[in-house]
């Protein structure tokens, strides 16, 4: 029975609601965000940005700034031991490559002195020719964003290359009855986590540097500390503070801020706090990659897809840190369909504009917007109903994925589609809306999509967990992945509770301190429950086996196998009333020298897909989702109203239904923004809407009626059968809205976002 209902799966602590374990500190305002921290003798740090998108610093003079009362340090690129930071980014630079680049950093006693110090720095620039769009960057003789960079061919970044090669598309196209070609385009999108980046660097007496930061990737944070100061990683420590949202974004600017604060703390010998303003955060932080897509499909009259060729071009902006996005993009380019011949290529192009990076979906929201509209257009060309077309080509158990992987786990797309169609009266409304007249017209649209769970062969998906019990029976858990709002500490608490057989109240999951746990990689890719929790489960299992030995001794039985742990009590199996409370066993365990703590490690089995061959198993398993959007369009004004979004997700096993639904609701709002509202007004590489008065995200008056539907299946890959959800929640929303707009108006939208003005122009062209 795929529809989730509490008790479907026989668990005690997961698969049911548990209030968030971090809720109390958050509702009382006591949670420790980085900007809230205060240390004795702490200074304030800040950065000076240049006025150009591409320029060279001809002269920089810091004397006047140093003379400002209260200014303690002014650093420029001349004070660095190497030009680039870890990755291509620069802490301070001589060559400005985008608006967010920094030429100097200052530490001062007060915020006023900091401001005055930054203003007193005297800089003379030589402006350089720049490129702002993919087309400009790829033109012959285009100015280079990165001169003398061996990783670039012109402005094309060689590390962004990846591909899919399955069958032979060229041969297959010649045999196809119908060929359909379309192009689409998407915009840069700002994460807009409500908490802007902040960090406090604290020099330690033993020569170590500790930085407290809202870093979504604490181990990258540690790298930036060590890299900026040229110290070994063993002397660099990153302590995670409460994170006010990330969505993939608190990585690059966060890392640079960690590095810059470290440099200032090192130069002054004082703790230095750097709090990024909203404007600085919008201008400097990475964005969801803008994409251009070229889709070409070959299909036979029977409606079967035979061949697909896709070219993806991503604008990576001025800098880029990781090439993995290309992997995810090509693997998902064909969507959740069976296609025998597939060819996908991707290009990453540098421009003198805002940098691109991970944002909730890591290419999938863009790709699904294009592909789910494209397949409707293919069905249209065939004269077929799009849903019948999609269903007849859809992935199923045992099918071969477009990248060549045999899908051996359950694929419950038919069940999800059937449920959502019934719930929304999809086909009835679709027919009803087909021939509307009048000013206000309604539409209903659907997207069908999948997501590779965890990192797959994008990167290493290994992670650590340390669990110990104290002699009073309380349980402490250290992990390497971060709570950033998604509910990870609650999920981990429930998973430890399930494994150990003790209530959630006994368990404390700590925020990441890089000195207390092994590098577990970034908190990205919706990997932290499906894969990241495996080490948590393993550590709890191992710890339980040690505790059972002590319990067996206390029961005077030889075999720990005779002992079970249920509801906080050790029991002797088959012996009524033989029960010892958990805390009593923990106490004896401690005082008899039992091992009270376990560090464990989980690394998923190796997969075969590589960007060199473009073929093979790309992810350990996949999540499957369907999204239905209902809209109304006003022909007089172009006004678009999203009336309802119904979003159904196969998450394998639901760990916590309410936090899962919270992900889906938030994902709907973000997906709606991607489709309709969120547009950075970038002119000549500069962002014009730098704050929330001009850059709009949905308020409580803008979001549609929402319904989140959870589905489960039996898939043994992830922790307790759980699969990914965080990113899936936002990925298919835009395409469902865009397809609904087509149902309402008959218009195809090949570029998003689509707002009222653009809709009006489209309707009255």
């Amino acid at each position, binding site marked *: 029975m795929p529809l989730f209902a509490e008790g479907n799966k026989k668990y005690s602590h997961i698969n049911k609601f548990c*209030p*968030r374990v*971090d*809720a*109390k*500190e*958050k*509702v*009382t*305002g*006591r*949670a420790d*965000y980085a*900007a*809230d921290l205060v240390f004795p003798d702490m200074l304030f740090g800040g950065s000076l940005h240049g006025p150009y998108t591409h320029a060279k610093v001809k002269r920089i003079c810091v004397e006047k700034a140093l*003379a*400002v*009362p209260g200014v303690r340090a002014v650093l420029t690129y001349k004070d660095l031991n190497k030009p680039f930071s870890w990755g291509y980014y620069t802490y301070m630079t001589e060559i400005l490559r985008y608006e967010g680049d920094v030429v100097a950093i200052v530490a001062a006693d007060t915020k*006023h002195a900091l401001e*005055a110090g930054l*203003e*007193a720095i005297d800089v003379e620039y030589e402006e350089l020719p720049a490129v702002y769009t993919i087309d400009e960057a790829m033109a012959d003789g285009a100015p280079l964003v990165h001169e003398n960079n061996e990783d670039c061919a012109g402005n094309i970044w060689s590390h962004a290359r990846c591909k899919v090669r399955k069958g032979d598309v060229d041969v297959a196209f010649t045999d196809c009855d119908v060929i359909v070609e379309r192009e689409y385009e998407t915009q840069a999108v700002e*994460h*807009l*986590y*409500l*908490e*802007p980046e902040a960090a406090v660097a604290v020099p330690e007496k033993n020569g170590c540097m500790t930085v407290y930061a809202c870093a979504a990737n604490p181990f990258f944070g540690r790298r930036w500390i060590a890299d900026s100061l040229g110290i070994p990683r063993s002397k660099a420590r990153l302590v995670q503070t*409460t*994170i*006010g*949202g*990330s*969505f993939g974004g608190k990585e690059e600017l966060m890392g640079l801020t960690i590095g810059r604060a470290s440099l200032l703390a090192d130069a002054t010998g004082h703790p230095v706090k750097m709090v990024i*303003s*909203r404007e600085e955060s919008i201008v400097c932080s990475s964005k969801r990659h803008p994409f251009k897509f070229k889709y070409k499909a070959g299909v036979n009259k029977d409606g079967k897809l035979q061949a697909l060729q896709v070219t993806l071009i991503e604008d990576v902006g001025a800098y880029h840190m990781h090439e993995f996005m290309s992997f995810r993009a090509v693997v998902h380019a064909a969507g959740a369909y069976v296609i025998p011949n597939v060819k996908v290529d991707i290009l990453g192009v540098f421009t003198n504009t805002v940098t691109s990076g991970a944002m909730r979906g890591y290419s999938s929201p863009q790709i699904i917007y294009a592909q789910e509209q494209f397949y409707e257009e293919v069905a249209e060309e065939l004269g077929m109903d799009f849903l019948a077309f999609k269903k007849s080509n859809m992935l199923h158990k045992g099918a071969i994925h477009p990248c060549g992987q045999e899908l051996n786990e359950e694929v419950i797309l038919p069940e999800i589609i059937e449920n959502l169609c019934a719930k929304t009266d999809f086909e009835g409304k679709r027919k009803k809306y087909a021939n509307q007249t009048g000013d206000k017209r309604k539409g209903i649209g659907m997207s069908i999509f999948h997501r590779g769970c965890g990192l797959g062969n994008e990167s290493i998906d290994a992670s650590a967990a340390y669990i110990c019990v104290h002699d009073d029976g309380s349980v402490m858990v250290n992990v390497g992945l971060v709570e*950033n*709002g*998604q*509910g990870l500490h609650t999920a981990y608490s429930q998973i430890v509770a399930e494994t150990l057989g003790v209530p959630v109240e006994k368990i404390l999951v700590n925020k990441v301190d890089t000195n207390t746990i092994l590098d577990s990689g970034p908190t990205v890719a919706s990997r932290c429950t499906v894969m990241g929790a495996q080490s948590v489960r393993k550590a709890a299992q191992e710890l339980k086996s040690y505790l059972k030995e002590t319990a067996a001794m206390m029961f005077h039985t030889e075999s720990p196998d005779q002992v079970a742990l249920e509801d906080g009590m050790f029991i002797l199996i088959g012996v009524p009333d033989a029960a010892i409370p958990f805390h009593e066993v923990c106490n004896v365990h401690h005082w008899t020298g039992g091992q009270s703590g376990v560090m464990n490690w989980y690394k998923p089995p190796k997969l075969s897909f590589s960007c060199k061959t473009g073929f093979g198993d790309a992810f350990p398993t996949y999540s499957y989702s369907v999204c239905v959007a209902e809209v109304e369009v006003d022909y007089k004004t172009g006004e678009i109203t999203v009336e309802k979004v119904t979003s159904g997700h196969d998450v394998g096993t639901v760990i916590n239904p*309410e*936090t899962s*639904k*919270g992900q889906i*609701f*938030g*994902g*709907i*709002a*973000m997906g709606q923004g991607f489709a309709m509202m969120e547009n950075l007004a970038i002119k000549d590489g500069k962002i014009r809407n730098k*704050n*929330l*008065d001009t850059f709009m*995200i*949905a*308020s*409580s*008056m803008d*979001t549609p009626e*929402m319904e989140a539907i959870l589905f489960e299946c039996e898939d043994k890959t992830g922790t307790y059968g759980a699969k990914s959800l965080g990113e899936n929640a936002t990925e298919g929303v835009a395409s469902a809205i865009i397809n609904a707009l087509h149902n309402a108006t008959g218009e195809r939208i090949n570029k998003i976002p689509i707002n009222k003005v653009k809709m009006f122009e489209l309707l009255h062209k």
Partner: protein
Amino acid sequence: MVNFRMSENIKIAFTLNGEVVNLEVEPDQTLLSALRDNLGMTGVKEGCSIGECGTCTVIVDGKATKSCIALAAAFDGREIVTIEGLANGDQLHPIQEAFIEKNAIQCGFCTPGFIMSALAYLEKHPRPRREEIRKAISGNLCRCTGYEQIVDAIEYYANEMEEAQ
């Protein structure tokens, strides 16, 4: 620009979470800065500094107020409640309990502002319809929740209060 102080500090006093506090503020200092930097009320957040996101919302004389665009010096003699003033030690305010029960929290950065806006509104409009709740909190932004469970929590709290009467 070296002379960055505009003029002398100003002495003010206001009631903060039920207690009178005396403080000296700079003429151009915001209420947000006074609450956070002078008084340690770090539950009041800074998200945009231009009065758009609502994370800095506090209640002044019963009215939800965005403290990032208010000058501290103007609050002499006023009565201010921040998120820190709601719980009594470990005893949470019922609206805080409602936010937990209805899973209205994710990253938590916007949470204090939503709670203050909701409380100020419900004080004067105890039986709101769902649409009215949505309107009442539309000055507060949230990027995580899509607002659904926040509205659930406020509605739940309002119903609880009504039943209690």
